[in-house]
């Protein structure tokens, strides 16, 4: 039998034009949902051994070591990012290291769709659907947090800034909705920049 056929949620969707930001689906990332207790030193040590990084414990932060990243999701939950091809290997290593320690590591690489937004207007666009104070200093590079976005649940990861590169994680079944939303709200005619220099109002 031939190779397994791989099809992501947004495969085959049109590439939008006339948007204020570039959007595209990220398809080569593996994801592991990791549960454990941050104050369990054995757990933290085992994860460090398997991933080579200290899990971030400050809320809404992330950590990276090479091509592996860990996003803080909760006081006892992280999303581990890695190249999709290495997910199984990494999961096995994690499970081995965590044997006997109260924890749960699950491959969730297919559970979410990642849409990358790139450009100066990425935050403005997201602000049309999110009530987070995305223009505040709290949202620096590396910030990861869950949010209510438009009518769905999502996870936001600010990959880098100037210009902004932001990954928006949505559950796979909502990918089309999120894509449609970004196209409808990201049109250049609806470009709004908050603060900064503006046209002088008439008097």
């Amino acid at each position, binding site marked *: 039998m031939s190779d397994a056929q791989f099809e992501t949620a947004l495969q085959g969707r049109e590439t939008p034009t006339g948007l204020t930001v570039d959007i595209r689906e990220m398809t080569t990332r593996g994801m592991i949902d990791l549960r454990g207790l941050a104050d369990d030193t054995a757990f933290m040590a085992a994860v460090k051994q398997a991933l080579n990084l200290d899990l971030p414990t400050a*809320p809404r932060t992330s950590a990276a070591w090479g091509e592996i990243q860990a996003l803080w*999701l*909760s*006081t006892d939950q992280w999303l581990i990012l890695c190249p999709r091809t290495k997910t199984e290997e990494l999961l096995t290593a994690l499970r081995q290291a965590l044997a006997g320690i109260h924890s749960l590591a699950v491959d969730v690489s297919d559970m979410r769709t990642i849409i990358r937004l790139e450009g100066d207007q990425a935050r403005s666009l997201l602000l049309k659907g999110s009530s987070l104070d995305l223009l505040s200093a709290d949202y620096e590079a590396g910030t990861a*947090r869950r949010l209510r976005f438009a009518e769905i649940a999502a996870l936001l990861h600010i990959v880098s800034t100037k210009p902004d590169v932001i990954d928006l994680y949505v559950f796979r079944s909502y990918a089309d909705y999120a894509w449609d939303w970004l196209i409808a709200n990201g049109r250049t005619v609806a470009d709004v920049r908050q603060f900064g220099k503006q046209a002088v109002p008439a008097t």
Partner: protein
Amino acid sequence: MLIVHCHVCGAEGDETDFHYGGQAHIARPATRDPANVSDAEQRDYLFMRHNAKGLHFERWRCDRGCGKWFHAARDTVTMEFKATYGISELPPRALMEAATGEWAVFFKDRLAKGSEA
């Protein structure tokens, strides 16, 4: 739209980022002694609620943040949050003392004992 502050992860956000969980400090009788729960105890547990006008104690979940439950003290008239505290904790002493009506009755013994929730 309320702004809610998560006691666990510190996230602050709109009420729609949180889930309201109703009155706080309701003990489940069946957990304590499943074989000896009277009809009245079960009714009180399922249905009877402190419906405070003013200072109220309630549960919230950080729905779009860390997913954890916590307690909050809120004024049901002005909507001001007076405090948040852990899901297994009692409110700050000053708020227990400020409570009125059914809540005052509820906290009376606990203030005397200073015990766990």
